């Protein structure tokens, strides 16, 4: 499997480690009234789609950047690769 790194080009998947669902970027607000429930869901609940899945990969043997990879879990086809920090900043999570 090849991951097309946005900065470095196509790199072998063996250079990367897998973390899981990219929803981990959406850390709940700890001051919210529903924080306990939110963190329970954030920590434990994942959808397990047969199809497109957005997931976090770490370029451990490369530039050490985190990527958001959109991968089809049935075919392993990768349709999009983004820098996780760009995704997070686009969601206003850079403060």
């Amino acid at each position: 499997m090849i991951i097309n790194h946005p900065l470095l080009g196509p790199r072998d998947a063996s250079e990367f480690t897998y973390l899981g669902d990219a929803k981990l970027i959406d850390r709940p607000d700890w001051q919210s009234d529903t924080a306990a429930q939110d963190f329970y869901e954030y920590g434990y609940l994942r959808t397990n789609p047969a199809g497109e899945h957005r997931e976090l990969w770490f370029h451990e043997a490369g530039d050490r950047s985190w990527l958001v990879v959109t991968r089809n879990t049935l075919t392993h086809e990768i349709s999009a690769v983004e820098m996780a920090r760009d995704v997070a900043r686009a969601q206003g999570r850079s403060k």
Partner: protein
Amino acid sequence: MHDLKPISALGGVSDTIGTMTITENSGVALASVAARMGGEVATKKALKKLLGDVPGPGRSQQHDPESGFWMGPDQWMIGAPMDTHELLADQLKTLLGDAASVTEQSGAWVVFDVVGAALPDMMERLCAAPVRTMVAGDTQRTVIHHLSCFVIRQNGADHVRILGPRASAGSLHHALNGAAHSVA
């Protein structure tokens, strides 16, 4: 006071195996620069002044006395001769101020210069960096015998510089020598 003498990771070892020469280069002072959020523009401006240009992804910038290469988004490694720039990190911090975080790296890395005609054959036994297609200045972080290393194509046609973890200098040296023997 004791009269303490600084030593390098492997005592400046140099081996010639077939056409390949593998030399520990203990004359490089290193410091990493990571632009802080909001300080990216100022950091790049200061680095451009220092190096002549700011190396982009997968590239290094050869310059005298300071050189640098890209490590990751908004992160660079700066190198300079140890004799004149032993306090490189302090010098960079003075230069960059609050725009970037600077970390001393001289004590974290061992530097090998690998030179010789069989270089591409040797490197493809060691790592996934495509040394045959890399041109001078191309830089890749890759894995050599489970050690995360930087491979920097130098100006000489048959020359790469390899930066590896200093704590595993002996293991990396063993890996390089083993690969050199297998192409000798």
